[in-house]
């Protein structure tokens, strides 16, 4: 039905810019929504800003200051290094100085080679009078007259976690200021499935893999965690006496809340961007079909009706008016898109085995897992792909492959800034060896966030 010409992966900046042009032309069939500038990660076409991060100055001799400062320094550096918009100055090239305040920094030291920094983040951190006080500054190293871009003070309970969270907040301020006004993601969370002891529970961690902890203790198999757009509730499916059912957990109350699903099995929930509706797969009328109810499980209505399973819906988070999902109506499961009332069905993939779509925050792309050569005995691998939603001028949807030859990958989920994708990977193919990874949305900077036993990650909306 549609051809899928492959975009060469390397000149990705140009590819996406070209894509933008092609979309604008090709959008004739859809209501013409204005194209936003294309942020799919680092693909802005602009050169990355070279930024240096000084080790913060210890502002007091309190015994807690040194370990908290170490946590803060490591976290801030990692946040900025992984933001996808910076060319970060390696610590080995940066001056040894730890300026604690504006009058202590020698900017020419930072702007000169080998650091050659355009921006410098610095400041001081101290435990004093039982509080963790941090002063953070961002200076333009090339502007000797008015160098200050940002000055922030944080005053928190002294703890390891406070030091980390303050670093995340300061990093997000810097990223917001220098990243074209897109909020940073250093304070976001990832919800995921933790495999262990024959069960699967729902866990939560910070976006960088820190602070991993259990949310559920149900002693059964729970799958597909999806956090609500306002971070107040978590929908997931869980195996009980009547098979898999969608459950709703209140992150505010710390307990389960009611979510009636009225018979049959129900699984793979998805939140509408406003948080008002939940789409999911239900078998209450026989064949697994997509249904939409309000977020309390009421007013359920059926939106797909076709032989073959319909699963894994994901809303267009930009408009809320479209749903992408996986359907087996023509054989092996393929990726489809429709309006959220069930009309305007469009098939996106026409080959292989597609699963686990996640719609990008700007509405333009769908990340999904795809085994393009699926079949008995076929040598294909299941990798993460990003597909453009709007077809090009020739009617084909363009796509790029983000993972290669690293074992089975599944469950991509976009970060709210659209610059990152988290996903699950098992290098040797064994399901219990799944780990959660993150990468930039152009496939670079891959790194593992969890050890083995992490699966089905879902990135919070903010």
């Amino acid at each position, binding site marked *: 039905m549609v051809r899928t010409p492959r975009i060469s992966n390397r000149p990705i900046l140009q590819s996406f810019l070209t894509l933008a042009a092609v979309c604008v032309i090709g959008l004739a069939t859809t209501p013409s929504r204005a194209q936003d500038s294309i942020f799919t990660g680092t693909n802005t076409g602009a050169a990355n800003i070279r930024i240096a991060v000084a080790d913060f100055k210890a502002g007091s001799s309190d015994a807690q200051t040194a370990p908290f400062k170490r946590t803060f320094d490591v976290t801030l550096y990692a946040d900025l290094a992984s933001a996808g918009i910076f060319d970060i100055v390696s610590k080995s090239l940066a001056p040894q100085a730890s300026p604690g305040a504006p009058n202590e920094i020698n900017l020419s030291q930072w702007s000169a080679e080998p650091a050659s920094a355009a921006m410098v983040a610095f400041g001081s951190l101290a435990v004093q009078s039982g509080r963790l006080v941090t002063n953070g500054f961002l200076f333009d190293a090339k502007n000797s007259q008015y160098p200050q871009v940002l000055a922030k003070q944080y005053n928190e309970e002294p703890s390891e976690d406070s030091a980390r969270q303050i670093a995340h907040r300061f990093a997000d301020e810097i990223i917001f200021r220098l990243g074209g006004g897109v909020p940073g993601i250093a304070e976001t969370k990832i919800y995921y499935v933790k495999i262990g002891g024959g069960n699967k529970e729902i866990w939560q961690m910070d976006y960088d893999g820190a602070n991993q902890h259990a949310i559920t203790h149900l002693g059964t*198999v729970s799958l597909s965690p999806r956090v609500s757009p306002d971070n107040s509730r978590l929908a997931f499916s869980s*195996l009980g006496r009547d*098979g898999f059912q969608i459950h709703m957990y209140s992150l505010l109350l710390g307990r389960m809340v009611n979510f009636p699903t009225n018979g049959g099995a129900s699984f793979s929930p998805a939140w509408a961007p406003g948080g008002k509706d939940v789409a999911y797969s239900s078998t209450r009328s026989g064949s*697994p079909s997509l249904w939409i109810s309000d977020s309390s499980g009421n007013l359920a209505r059926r939106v797909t009706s076709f032989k073959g399973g319909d*699963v*894994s819906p994901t809303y267009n988070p930009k408009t809320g008016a479209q749903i992408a999902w*996986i359907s087996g109506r023509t054989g092996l499961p393929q990726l489809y898109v429709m309006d959220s009332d069930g009309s305007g069905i469009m098939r996106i993939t026409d080959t292989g085995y597609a*699963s686990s779509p996640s719609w990008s925050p700007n509405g333009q792309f769908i990340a999904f897992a795809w085994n393009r050569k699926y079949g008995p005995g076929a040598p294909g691998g299941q990798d993460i792909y990003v597909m453009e939603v709007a077809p090009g001028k020739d009617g084909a949807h363009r796509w790029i492959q983000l993972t290669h030859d690293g074992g089975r990958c599944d469950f991509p989920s976009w970060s709210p800034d659209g610059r990152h994708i988290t996903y699950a990977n098992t290098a040797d193919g064994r*399901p219990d060896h799944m780990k959660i990874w993150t990468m930039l949305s152009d496939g670079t900077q891959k790194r593992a966030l969890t050890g083995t036993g992490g699966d089905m990650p879902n990135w919070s909306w903010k």
Partner: protein
Amino acid sequence: MTLNYRKHYTKFRKAFAMTAAALALITVIGCHKKSSGIDPNSLGPTNASEPVAASPSASITADPLAIDLGQSVVLNWRTQNATVVTIDGIGQVNVNGTQTVSPSNSTNFHLTAKGDGGTIEANVRVTVRVPVAPTVPPPTGNLPGDMGSEAEFHKNVQDAFFDYDSADLRPDAQAATAQAASYLAAHPGIKVVIGGYADERGSAEYNLALGETRANAARTALTAAGVAPGRLRVISYGKEKQFCTEENETCWQENRRAQFSLDR
């Protein structure tokens, strides 16, 4: 959960046999309560010029290990180099397989695997929590409410297996469901859970749908043959409850099935 002590025992016994076969016989009879026969290899000196048959290995697991009375347990056993495999209380079984059982009290499932290279045993203990409150003796005879025996059920109602990514009933699955339907027609008290399973390949969420569709196909075949829909309950496990976890077609085929269990 899995016991593998027989190997060492056999070795020990061989050493004995070389010095006194009669003594070995006593050892065998004395210590080996349920082995049906004596391994001929153990009775005389081994002929070094003959190729030595690989000794069998066996393991058996149960999921879950502890149940309340009336619940069922899935036994899963794997053997290698075995030709005859028996499980006490079940009888002779396939060399690799799974079976749902519902013991009425705590049971030691004892598997004996015999091959050219010797005999090996494996055990798994299933604990049954029996309520202490006195119960009314169950009615006997083929009355409504009579579930029949577990063993008889599994002899007559067998799993339906499916092709890859398919929920269509193959001829063998049609035969299985037809036999199941006639057994259920003769035992109107029986209610059945149809579990839908998929192999480990592909997506977890899509496989939940596939398992559901497979179980529904089996359900449709039973209702078409006259079994009342109210007696049948469908649960899809997708690929979440794998009985066989190796990456090969034999294993995948075992996982692609609709499994019938008594719904108590």
